[in-house]
């Protein structure tokens, strides 16, 4: 199944990374925001972002460097499963830093986003965040 295009999404989650502060397995220097403060999202700007959306919403996640001139290669490895993604909504890869999915079931779940940062000349850093989706 091919991934949903970002242009078909209404909710966008950005995962901003300060690669200078990033540590293997930790979430220091990672900040999540979405475009949904009007409709009940909470904990914006933190790793505990809670995105509140109705069933059927297409969501696009982007992994981004706070420094737009950085040579560091960021990459989303995968998403953990969660009940709110239902039978077929689990996020799929669009490109290395962009994934899209659909919430198909009501409920509130934490979901894992596993990602890596390859800083030139250094060993790679792998970590994950587990923000919340609240689906009504």
């Amino acid at each position, binding site marked *: 199944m*091919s*991934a949903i*295009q*970002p*242009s078909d*999404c*209404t909710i*966008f989650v*950005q995962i*901003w990374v*300060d*690669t*200078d*502060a990033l540590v293997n397995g930790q979430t*220091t*220097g990672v*900040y999540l*925001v*979405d*475009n*949904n*403060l*009007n409709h009940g999202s909470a904990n*914006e*700007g*933190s790793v505990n972002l809670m995105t509140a959306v109705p069933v059927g919403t297409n969501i*696009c996640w*982007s992994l*981004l*460097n*706070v*420094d*737009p*001139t*950085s040579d560091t290669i960021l990459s989303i490895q995968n998403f953990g499963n969660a009940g709110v993604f239902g039978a077929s909504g689990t996020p799929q*890869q*669009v*490109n290395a*830093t*962009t994934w899209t999915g659909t919430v198909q079931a009501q409920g509130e779940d934490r979901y894992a986003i596993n990602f890596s940062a390859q800083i030139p000349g250094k060993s790679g850093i792998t970590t994950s965040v587990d923000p919340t989706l609240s689906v009504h």
Partner: protein
Amino acid sequence: MSEAVAQVSTGRKSGLQPQTSITIAVDTAYVAAQQGQNVSKGIYMMDNRLRNGSTGEGTLELSTVCNNGDLIGFNVVPINALGTSGDEVVITGFTVSQGSVFTAAGQPRQQESPKGEPQGAYWVGQAMHQGEQTYQIQIEVTVGKLQPVSYFINWDPFITAR
């Protein structure tokens, strides 16, 4: 898999390599819902100086701690950059409210934007003087395609150069 999807913040066009980078992510729908008035949420600032002692990460009132002499990049992006809304955000200017870190010589100037971002989305300044500074940043948030509406927002974050 499509390769046609624009990515934000991946370009390097200005030629400058700021040691300190500040990102401003904007929830354009929230700003529009407030009609641009009294916006104290929906705009999130992050920098790459957490290990240097910056505080307020992920909030409107970021307090950046940089090193004296640092070039400081400011990049503003709409959170729905990959969507079809066409919403745009650009920086329209900086003033210093209190203190002097930029001085006249380090006052931020507009640079060529990263790939996929409009002109005005990326500015670079320089910390020319040790100390603390409260600066005011003004952005223009434009929402809608057929009849775009612009809102001008300003607020007062902080920079300490040591």
